[in-house]
């Protein structure tokens, strides 16, 4: 309803500006960001898998890329996005139907902590394999 700001400016300010906002908005914003990142990843993933249609050498080429440190970092970022989005998604499903609303903040902190722990384990496993 404001006149001068565009839809996109209002979206950025309304959805992602953490000033004066509480944990619930942070949870929502991170869910949205991780979700959008994962959609992009889905498309990227299908592109990468398409190299399989060019035979073994093409795939081996990709595997070489997959063992570089940069790729490892991106992979870990991907895991973080998946873990956060998945665990917070469970929270959203619960509180979205009116279950556990009063505990929504603790639920957020708890699940975020769980995501970090599981992520740490995944990083360690991937790094030592």
């Amino acid at each position: 309803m404001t006149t001068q700001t565009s839809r996109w400016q209002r979206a950025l300010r309304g959805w992602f500006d953490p000033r004066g906002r509480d944990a619930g908005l942070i949870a929502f914003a991170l869910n949205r960001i991780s979700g959008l990142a994962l959609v992009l990843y889905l498309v990227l993933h299908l592109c990468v898998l398409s190299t399989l249609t060019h035979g073994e050498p093409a795939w081996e080429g990709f595997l070489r890329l997959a063992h570089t440190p940069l790729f490892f970092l991106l992979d870990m970022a991907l895991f973080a996005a998946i873990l956060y989005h998945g665990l917070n998604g469970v929270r959203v499903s619960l509180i979205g139907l009116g279950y556990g609303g009063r505990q929504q903040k603790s639920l957020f902190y708890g699940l975020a902590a769980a995501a970090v722990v599981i992520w740490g384990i995944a990083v360690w496993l991937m790094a030592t394999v």
Partner: protein
Amino acid sequence: MTESQRPLSGNGRPGPKRPVTFRVYRSRAGSGAEPRFDTFQVDVDPRMTVLDALEDIRTGQDPTLLYRHSCHHASCGTCAMKVNHRDVLSCVTNVLELGTEVVTVEPLGVLPPISDLVVDMTPLAEQISPTGLKTLRLSEYNAKAVAPEGVGAYHRFENCIECGACVSACPITNTDSDFLGPAALAATYRALLKGDTLPEKLYALADCEHGAWRCHTGWECTSVCPSDVDPAGLLTALRRRVLVQKVRRLFGIGG
């Protein structure tokens, strides 16, 4: 009061005043001038609220400052605004407890700005009105009360004081002007519980793309509500009811 509205500084005793800078949003409808922030210095007493400071500014520094106020004790919902980017009732927001040397004061978001800290509350009323929520409810106190002769039961006002803080804080109302918003949806659920309005009408209000389903459980509304309405809790309970209704209808069970 919810935890977001802390009481005035503990013992209410006066103490040494401290200088605080206020950055106040200024605008004038119809003037064509760009909105701006004016800076004011106020010597703040530990008991002072943001509303007290605004009064100080208006009487002592700039009589053109516009803001709304009425009861000064969190009952009327008139003085809601953004203080340090958070939607609060300025009459119960203690300045020094904010803990910042500069206090930023802006009007509520989402609702159409009029001038300075005054916004147009009409859209909020237009959203809540169709729910037909009656402002009186039976008091929970009745269970323990021994009513005197001639008194049937005690009633009290619904929690919602229609201050607009929740609408301003919600991430979705900021971009989707069709979204009914937390206040109206909370009222919808209350009306359903009390039987103030035909259920079919309330389900129609809630069960549309820009009704209860547009909520993303940011929970900002409940967080900023100064009156313990818990709009997020009511809205999500309403969703559950709507879902149960839909499932019932799908399987042809009564209700």
